[in-house]
């Protein structure tokens, strides 16, 4: 078929630069044959165009395999490393997050996020890599100015040869293409002067861009300077709540106070514990020496049982201050600051009246915590009784032993 004259006529302004030649072929088979011929003719800067991937065109054109799979593999491996590094650094190193005693960094728990980041990185690379390797985006191209070429996305098969190809000849190249079975051949031109963007638009973009810089600048300034104003609450959350706090005023009541006094006759906790001797171990101004409860064998047995539960961990079974906790603490290498519990048999304790011992059990002393909340008052008196018995047993004289058994001790 001869080269059709009409498309070859300069349909653009004469100053337009020649960009290349475009030839349409009737079907895919002819396109593949023509592609083989163009390649064998030694052209370098040329391409085939079709509405769908044509079978066998890659071999005909001698297209080299795309490096995209290697890029995707690299990105996937990168994603795995980023995910593992992120999870280790954040949860095991920068801010160790201990959850139910599980290891800070363990593979099984970190697999899901690693998998997702592998896929995300690899997928983004496959997409962006394909766009870049396809030479896209390129919104302005000489071929897109051709009306004939618009069929390429419907049913048109084309070959285009770039004018910059060393073998390109404005006469010979179109002739060769038509001899290969092209149904039409035309020359494509690059416009001499590209259409420019209106200056108004350019200035609008510049001004908008500068204005867009203002908010970040204000934020940066606010973060770098100090102010005695309360901070701006964009979202107040629950910082300001409509409620009364202690010692605030309220117009609801005649006395103007938000807090209400208890109803007449209300008893607070502890108000019924008026017996100073029983509840606080006091008689008059001093510590009580006597017991407010009857001293019986039962009380002694109860005291022993309660002492063994609450007191022995520190003071030991005999009250020597050698309980298990103290023993363990002294065995530790870092026991320098450990103060052993007091022995109940030192002079200082032995001369204390029963009421003072009771007070110590109730409210604690030095680092010993108070047990008033844990042990009932009567049981505390029982413990006091048992402590007196322990003190007596450790500091007994011969006179304390009944006369009948004294000979056995000698």
């Amino acid at each position, binding site marked *: 078929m001869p080269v059709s004259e009409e498309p070859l006529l300069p349909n653009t302004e004469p100053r337009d630069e020649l960009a290349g030649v475009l030839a349409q072929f009737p079907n895919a088979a002819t396109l593949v044959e023509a592609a083989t011929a163009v390649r064998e003719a030694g052209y370098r800067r040329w391409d085939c165009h079709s509405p769908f991937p044509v079978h066998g065109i890659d071999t005909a054109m001698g297209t080299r395999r795309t490096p995209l*799979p290697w890029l*995707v593999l690299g990105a996937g491996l990168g994603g795995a490393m980023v995910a593992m590094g992120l999870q280790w650094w954040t949860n095991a190193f920068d801010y160790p997050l201990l959850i139910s005693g599980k290891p800070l960094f363990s593979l099984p728990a970190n697999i899901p996020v690693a998998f997702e980041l592998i896929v*995300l990185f690899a997928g983004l690379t496959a997409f962006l890599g394909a766009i870049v390797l*396809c030479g896209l985006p390129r*919104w302005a191209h000489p071929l897109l100015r051709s009306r004939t070429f618009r069929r390429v*996305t419907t049913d048109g098969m084309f070959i285009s040869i770039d004018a910059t190809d060393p073998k390109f000849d404005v006469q010979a190249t179109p002739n060769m293409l038509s001899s290969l079975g092209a149904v039409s051949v035309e020359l494509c031109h690059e416009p001499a002067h590209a259409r420019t963007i209106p200056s108004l638009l350019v200035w609008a973009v510049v001004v908008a861009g500068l204005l867009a810089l203002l908010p970040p600048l204000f934020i940066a300034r606010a973060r770098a300077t100090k102010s005695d104003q309360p901070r701006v609450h964009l979202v107040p959350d629950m910082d300001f709540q409509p409620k009364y706090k202690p010692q605030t005023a309220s117009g609801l009541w005649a006395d103007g106070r938000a807090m209400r006094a208890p109803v007449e006759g209300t008893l607070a906790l502890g108000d019924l514990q008026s017996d100073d001797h029983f509840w606080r171990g006091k008689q008059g101004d001093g510590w009580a020496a006597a017991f407010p409860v009857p001293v019986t064998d039962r009380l002694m047995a109860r005291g022993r049982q309660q002492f063994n539960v609450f007191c022995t961990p520190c003071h030991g079974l005999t009250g020597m201050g050698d309980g298990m906790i103290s023993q363990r603490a002294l065995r530790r290498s870092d026991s320098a600051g450990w103060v052993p519990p007091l022995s109940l048999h030192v002079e200082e304790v032995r001369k204390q009246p029963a009421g003072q011992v009771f007070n110590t059990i109730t409210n604690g002393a030095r680092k010993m915590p108070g047990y008033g909340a844990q042990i009932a008052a009567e049981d505390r008196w029982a413990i006091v009784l048992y402590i007196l018995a322990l003190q007596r047993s450790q500091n007994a004289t011969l006179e304390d032993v009944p006369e009948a058994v004294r000979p056995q001790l000698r």
Partner: protein
Amino acid sequence: MSTLDLRSADNTGNDPTRRAALVIGHHDYASVTQLVSQLAERSRTPLAWYVAFAVSAAWAGLFFLLIGYLVFTGVGVWGNNRPVGWAFDIVNFVFWVGIGHAGTLISAILFLFRQRWRTSINRAAEAMTVFAVICAAVYPGVHIGRAWLAYWLAPYPNQMQIWPNFRSPLLWDVFAVSTYFTLSLLFWYLGMIPDLATLRDRAQSRLKRFIYGVFALGWRGSARAWHVYETAYLLLAALATPLVLSVHSVVSFDFAVSVLPGWHTTIFPPYFVAGAIFSGFAMVVTLMVPARAWFGLKDLITLRHLENMNKVILATGCMVGYAYGIEFFIAWYGGNPYEQFAFLNRALGPYAWAYWIMVTCNVAVPQLLWMKSWRTTPWKMMIVAILVNVGMWFERFVIIVISLTRDFLPSNWGAYSPTWVDLGMFAGSFGLFFMLFLLFCRWLPMVAMAEVKTVLPHPEN
């Protein structure tokens, strides 16, 4: 292989010696382009489209109004309350994410298996995926209570100097769903670039040529570009295949990794994935049956396509039924009284009606598809597909809500019923979904034209 019946209207035959045509009618490249492009090129939008769009946009508007109401008032406007902390919000999230899975299965897994019938339906199915994941992603974003702090989900350096807990399934979910959405969108868009170029080249007005041209990125059908493009498409399919299986597995971890009876089950990941594909295909059928009739795409989306999808629905429906049975078996065989009670309570407790709706719709109804007439008659398969959608929504309700109403301590038991905001947001998410789908049908190529051209029975005519 090519014989007389190749282009006949019925291509659902099972004769193995004859390869069934994937496109029927006398189509060549130009007529395929014309058939699909004219839908997006109509200068006058049909009245029916406006009506449908107005209805769905109104519901979508309600959806966003209710989200605003929720954000300004608090999650108390929902029916969620102790012990049912997760209800419609998470039910709808799992439902919509599951819907999306069919699109990725069609576009990625069937592509890897060289199931070429996917080419006619993959575009619309992928669009469905993207829109369904958008609907899904709204729910976890707003159910956290202080929606304006949703960015705390991301690991970013902050003044509090703390990081998200990477051993929590809820965080895995953030990564899985966001990766899934990103990849689905890229896959959809990459596949659409040649077809956007078609619309650009056919555009009659300068504005349309400009807009389609911007999104077509200057695609010129270059053979070198096609080579890269096909490699990229294959790679994305290979990446999306394990991804689609992982997403619903991770969603199921949200439940399976906890210790609540009825949730703490190792069968969840495969069971959820099968259910997702099941519900997703049902939604594709629900969309495709009316779409192929209204938009005149019966030659491209043939009865054989629908029948194939119905076969997938039948297969996955049986898998889901098997999972329901195995759950009961393991509850009995495992000997854990709490788990046994949880499952008996599902079938016989106060929400038994929900359980039996689920079993009927998901296990019994799909059995109709053993009959060929149910697989190949559009109105019959519509009934099945819609009931499967209903059943799969109830499956998530059964798993999430019923399990939460009865935990270990009877003193902690409770009940759940949705408020009008719950129901409005559920309906509103459908409005958003259909609104996006209608926009897609109106302005974008509904069928992958470039791909369909490669499966035409007689390419050179």
